[in-house]
């Protein structure tokens, strides 16, 4: 469980996050949606303490990470997996080395155990036979799947995904969504996903938070989002409504 309480963040005169308070549930896919530039990524990076907040708190369970010293924060981060927008795989390492990297750095496993765990993670994301390829040699969808495998390598309690579907075709995007959702439920992870993909909302939106101009404008789930009276949210989801109307 993660709780954000009264989070504020500015860059110069640009007040990006305005008194944001959200609870993210364990074992559920918590989606943050909003237009580009609404503050989603800043919120996500503030939650993982990549950006320090100007005011407010972020609780991981009972621990407020805004007050943690660097050593404790470092220890907490070993329990975090993150999927970045572009994958952020290490170019100089193969797929297998990328997945083994967190284990190399922080686990006491033997090489054999690390290899076994990496293979398990690769199997879990349905990626077999790509072990020795470099990130530049695999497709965007494979890249994201390797990044998920790396993110779950150390059995994290918290998973963060920043625009996991950006740049992917609808079929692969659906596959990535389902994978994240399955992993979240299987390992009872607290998962937070930033997205502006309405397909993801309809598919895996257990909890949905709509951010507009740095403020929480609406909260709900995939079942009641289309009934929302919030005009900004209606404007945001209208393209998805259009597709639904064509389908009918």
């Amino acid at each position: 469980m993660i709780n954000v309480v009264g989070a504020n963040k500015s860059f110069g005169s640009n007040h990006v996050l305005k008194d944001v308070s959200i609870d993210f549930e364990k074992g559920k896919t918590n989606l943050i949606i909003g237009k580009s530039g609404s503050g989603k990524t800043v919120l996500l990076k503030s939650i993982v303490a990549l950006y320090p907040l100007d005011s407010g708190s972020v609780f991981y369970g009972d621990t407020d990470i805004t007050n943690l010293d660097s050593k404790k924060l470092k220890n907490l981060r070993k329990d975090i997996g993150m999927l970045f927008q572009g994958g952020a795989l290490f170019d100089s390492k193969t797929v297998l080395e990328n997945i083994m990297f967190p284990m190399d750095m922080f686990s006491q496993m033997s090489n054999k155990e690390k290899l076994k765990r990496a293979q398990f993670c690769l199997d879990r994301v349905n990626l077999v036979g790509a072990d020795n390829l470099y990130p530049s040699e695999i497709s965007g969808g494979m890249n994201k799947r390797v990044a998920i495998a790396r993110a779950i390598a150390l059995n994290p309690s918290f998973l963060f995904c920043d625009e996991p579907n950006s740049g992917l075709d609808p079929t692969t995007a659906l596959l990535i969504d389902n994978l994240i959702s399955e992993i979240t439920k299987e390992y009872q992870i607290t998962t937070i996903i930033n997205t502006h993909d309405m397909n993801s909302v309809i598919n895996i939106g257990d909890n949905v938070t709509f951010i507009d101009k740095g403020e929480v404008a609406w909260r709900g789930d995939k079942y009641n989002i289309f009934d929302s009276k919030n005009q900004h949210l209606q404007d945001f989801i209208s393209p998805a409504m259009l597709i639904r109307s064509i389908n009918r």
Partner: protein
Amino acid sequence: MTFFSEIGNYSVFLAKVFNKPERKRILFKEFKEELIKLGINSIPIVIIISLFIGAVITIQTAYNMKARLVPLYLIGYLVRESMILEFSSTIVSLILAGKIGSNIASEIGSMRISEQIDALEIMGVNSASYLALPKIIAAMVFNPILYVFSVFIGVIGGIMAGSLGGLISVTSFIEGLQFHVHLYYIAYSMIKTVFFGFIITSIAAFYGYNVSGGALNVGKASTKAVVNSSVAILIMNLILTQLILN
């Protein structure tokens, strides 16, 4: 003001770099890779530069000695002294600042804009130390080796230019090489190359690490890294020469 804030940021960066490494085994593994990337792979350019510098010094010295009452073997002596004191340490380091410096700044800068550094931080890895420390140690270890290599190749270039151009016999050149040897000069220059190795890698890593924005800024950081590390080398050269030789 920008200058002082950059010095401050550079100091903070170095403090982060010299933090205790996550895993010594990983540091050693990365160090070995950097030895190859920054050291072994720099040998061809060092050979080319040193060979031509040695040859040119020989021709210039011989030209200036024509019809003067000085023994020809001094050409060998001057080539040796020039290579040992300045060319193989400072000039080669300036060239390496261009080759290695731009490579490091663009590599780390690209990692920054593609969020690979954020990924390291999220995992709980000290990204500055993980990325920069192996490069700094590798350059500090391998630069003196490149220096010795450069002196040796420079002398060979001098011998070739002297004998093939009919300026000085190989015997006279070697006589000059053996004339009035100061081993202290070699130690002085080797100390310089250790400092220069540190300057090249740490400044380049600093600019790469602090890239923000897109690919255009990676290029700018790369240029800044080369220019500033070259200036820093020249200033450090002056300081060390004053401290050690005076």
